[in-house]
């Protein structure tokens, strides 16, 4: 048994709807060590958020975890009941959601909402809690913390709200933070501030983080390892260097090519032609084949499995791109 | 013809119909409504007595209880009233009046309300402000009181009830349609039509109106039930329909006068029918609202 923090094997989370079964996550494996930052990248609807919710046990009807293991600290989270998960949520694993505007309850002060986590998972008394709140607010860079404790969420800007949410996520010294598109709803200027803040905090505390995003530029800055998803499956995974500088899957290549770079002279942004297929009607063979410029007959007939390209770098492609 | 059958085919396979079939309450509601429609259309020919034809009444048969109670008569299944009128027959005729008035009121208020809502939402500005102000003020008063007041001023009569109900009912249609119009107005197809030079009234009728039909249908369905209850209440108080054309509410009123002597069937049965009818409408309306609500993703 390795001392990995998180080991996910064969995770399958399906949604049973009127129109059919949506295989939101269809066979996902990856690992995470203590203190590592993992990026999960993909277009909307590829299942990356569902991976995050599956780990937290927050997948609601009509979805459920059909199969697979989520090994965290020796426990299989996929098999834990609600009571066990509640002990873990907010304490060992915490989550940061996408929209700071709606993540906080508008009727309670932020002090109340921050203290809620502490009340749930620790024995601190009122004084200790208040002190910790102030400490956290300072850590996330909110000035005049004292006076802001009694404010309501609507009195904060989007960026500041996200900082509060990050503070809540750090409150119980978690082992793992799952950040689901934490900066997508924020102004571009604020985005990099928040990201830098998150990276610094996470490294300072030795917390691991799963950063879920559609923005490859974000993961390029932040992460140690990257997992690229498409239509519920992993198409490529590896270290940051592997993916950014030496990616092999045509989809990853496409994603990288569509990042505008200020300094470099680019004739035009490359675009991945076509559209994401309907998740209820996936093509036989490789899901990306219809849009892939390198696709051949084998790709359309046979679904590629994740194969090892080099140590720590895997891709699901019959003809990985040579660079 | 072909288009119609294609549409009905699409409907039968739609999620709406599928959910309808699976919902006990929706089917019950539709069933109840169908039953009442049946009564309205075929009732008079099935019931042997016309309670408004004085010649067919037998005064000696007055106040007979329902047939399962001693003293009852199988000819008068639900008993008779003080004039020898068969309660069931009265209910059949009364239902027609109740339903017809409410349907007419629904049509009138929806047409007026929708028109005002479309104009208000599309043109905006002072006109919109004014109409909505009136609506808001009117909404702060209970509809029943407004209707009661109007009828006390007008006097009894079918047409007057219709007018009162329309005055009370237009507001919710106007509000709903205005809301939908506002959101449709932002959409690109409206801007495209404007850019193409289509005159405003054509845009409203041809483009926006079809798209606001859905919430309109939901509101209209539930409103019929509301109108039935208001009309029944007005008639019960004696300020609704005239005595010569009794609706179910008036029947209950007549029965109430003798209730304390133990003669319950003349008021209980008509009232039960009102409840059943409105219940059926609400069941269906509820279902439609849940299904057609775009917010419940």
């Amino acid at each position, binding site marked *: 048994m390795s001392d990995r923090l998180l080991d996910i094997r064969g995770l399958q989370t399906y949604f049973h709807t009127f129109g059919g079964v949506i295989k939101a996550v269809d066979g996902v494996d990856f690992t995470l060590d203590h203190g590592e930052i993992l990026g999960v990248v993909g277009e909307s609807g590829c299942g990356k958020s569902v991976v995050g919710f599956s780990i937290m046990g*927050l997948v609601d009807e009509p979805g459920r975890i059909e199969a697979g293991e989520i090994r965290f600290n020796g426990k299989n989270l996929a098999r834990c009941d609600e009571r066990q998960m509640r002990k873990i949520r907010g304490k060992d694993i*915490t989550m940061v959601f996408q929209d700071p505007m709606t993540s906080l309850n508008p009727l*309670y002060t932020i002090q109340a909402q921050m203290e809620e986590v502490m009340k749930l998972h620790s024995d601190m008394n009122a004084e200790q809690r208040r002190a910790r709140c102030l400490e956290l607010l300072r850590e996330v860079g909110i000035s005049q913390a004292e006076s802001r404790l009694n404010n309501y969420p609507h009195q904060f800007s989007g960026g500041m709200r996200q900082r509060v949410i990050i503070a809540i996520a750090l409150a119980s010294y978690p082992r793992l933070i799952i950040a689901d598109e934490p900066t997508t709803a924020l102004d571009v200027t604020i985005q990099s501030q928040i990201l830098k803040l998150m990276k610094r905090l996470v490294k300072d505390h030795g917390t691991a983080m799963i950063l879920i995003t559609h923005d490859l530029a974000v993961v390029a800055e932040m992460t140690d390892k990257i997992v690229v998803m498409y239509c519920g499956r992993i198409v490529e995974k590896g270290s940051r260097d592997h993916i950014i500088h030496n990616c092999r899957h045509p989809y990853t290549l496409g994603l990288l090519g569509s990042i505008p770079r200020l300094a470099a002279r680019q004739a035009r942004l490359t675009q991945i032609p076509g559209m994401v297929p309907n998740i209820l009607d996936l093509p036989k063979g490789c899901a990306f084949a219809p849009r892939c410029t390198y696709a051949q007959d084998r790709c359309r007939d046979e679904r590629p499995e994740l194969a090892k390209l080099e140590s720590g770098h895997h891709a699901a492609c019959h003809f990985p791109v040579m660079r | 013809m072909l288009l119609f059958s294609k549409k009905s085919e699409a409907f039968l396979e739609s999620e709406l119909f599928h959910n309808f079939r699976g919902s006990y309450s929706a089917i019950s509601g539709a069933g109840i409504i169908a039953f009442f429609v049946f009564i309205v259309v075929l009732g008079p020919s099935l019931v042997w007595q016309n309670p408004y034809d004085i010649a067919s009444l037998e005064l000696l048969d007055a106040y007979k209880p329902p047939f399962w109670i001693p003293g009852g008569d199988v000819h008068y299944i639900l008993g008779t009233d003080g004039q020898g009128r068969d309660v069931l027959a009265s209910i059949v005729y009364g239902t027609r009046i109740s339903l017809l008035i409410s349907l007419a009121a629904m049509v009138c208020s929806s047409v007026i309300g929708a028109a005002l809502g479309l104009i208000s939402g599309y043109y905006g500005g002072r006109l919109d402000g004014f109409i909505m102000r009136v609506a808001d*003020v009117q909404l702060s008063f209970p509809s029943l009181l407004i209707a009661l*007041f*109007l009828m006390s*001023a007008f006097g009894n009569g079918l047409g007057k009830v219709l007018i009162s109900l329309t005055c009370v009912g237009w507001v919710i249609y106007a509000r709903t349609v205005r809301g939908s119009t506002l959101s449709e107005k932002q959409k690109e197809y409206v801007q495209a039509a404007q850019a193409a030079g289509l005159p405003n009234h054509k845009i409203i009728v041809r483009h926006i109106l079809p798209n606001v039909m859905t919430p309109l249908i939901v509101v209209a369905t539930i409103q019929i039930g509301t109108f039935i209850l208001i009309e029944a209440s007005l008639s019960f108080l004696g300020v609704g329909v005239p005595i010569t054309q009794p609706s179910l*509410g008036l029947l209950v009123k007549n029965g109430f006068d003798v209730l304390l002597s133990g003669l319950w069937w003349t008021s209980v049965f008509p009232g039960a029918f009102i*409840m059943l009818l409105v219940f059926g409408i609400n069941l269906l309306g509820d279902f439609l609202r849940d299904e057609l609500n775009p917010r419940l993703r």
Partner: protein
Amino acid sequence: MISYLIKRIFQMVAVLWIVSIIVFTMMSFTGDPTYMMVPLDATQEEIAHARALLGLDKPYVVQYGIFLKNMLHGDLGRSFVFRQPAFGLIMERVPATVEMVMVSMILALVLAIPLGVFAGAYPRMKTSRAIMAGSLLGISLPNFWLGIMLIFVLAVQFHLLPSSGRGDTVSLAGVNLSVFTRDGLLHIIMPAVTLCFATLAMLLRITRAGMMEVMKQDYIKFARAKGATFHNVLFKHALKNALIPVVTIFGLQLGDLIAFATITEYIFAWPGMGKLLIDSIYMGDRPVIVVYLMFVAFLFVLINFVVDIIYTFIDPRITLR
């Protein structure tokens, strides 16, 4: 704050003024009341004389002007039937109506909110569905029919409760209330239950809808992500938010109660202002009708105002504009 108050008061007065015009205009269509005031065998001269006394020979606008002037001086007209100041008649009966409305409202709230929360939190349970079916039945019931049924079953058949009237009263701060006497309670049960039904059903549905809406919000999921128990999430996070729509329609519901009280008072011969209104409509007692409507309009305007103020205390996002 002050500017808001001034604006509101101005609006309220404007509404009341418009209502007075409408009421007065409509009432002048109800025929000539002179005939009520004179004996049956009055001559034409005596009738004309009475009409002049009543001021009914003057042009409409002048009549309205007199009406308005009198109203501002506190003279709201005399009942044709009782020959007493109409306002006094109404005021005498207000406590009875208020009592019944209050009891109904309390009954409705106490039952509707817990049931609504339950039905909203566990929407798929059989009990919840039963509750919802029951509430739908509640809003489909004709209020008068329910009263009739109750009277028939509890009073006529089983002689458990009195079928009409108000019970003994006890004077509290100059106001006569009947809820504090046993006899009074017996008398008020049926009317209050009849009246509260529709409101109960409506409040229940709104609470449930509010709960279901709130449970889908992100902050609920976030609370769960913090490790909160379902119970916690329900009562701490969801409830307060779900009750906001309840407060919104509270004023309207109170208005509905006052409106339906007319019917309930009529059925149970409850001596409140609603019964007075119905009786006055039958007897063509114009002044009383006018005063009732003005008073009730004033009440509604006031209730809406108070509700708006209360609203700001509940939801910190709302500020008075």
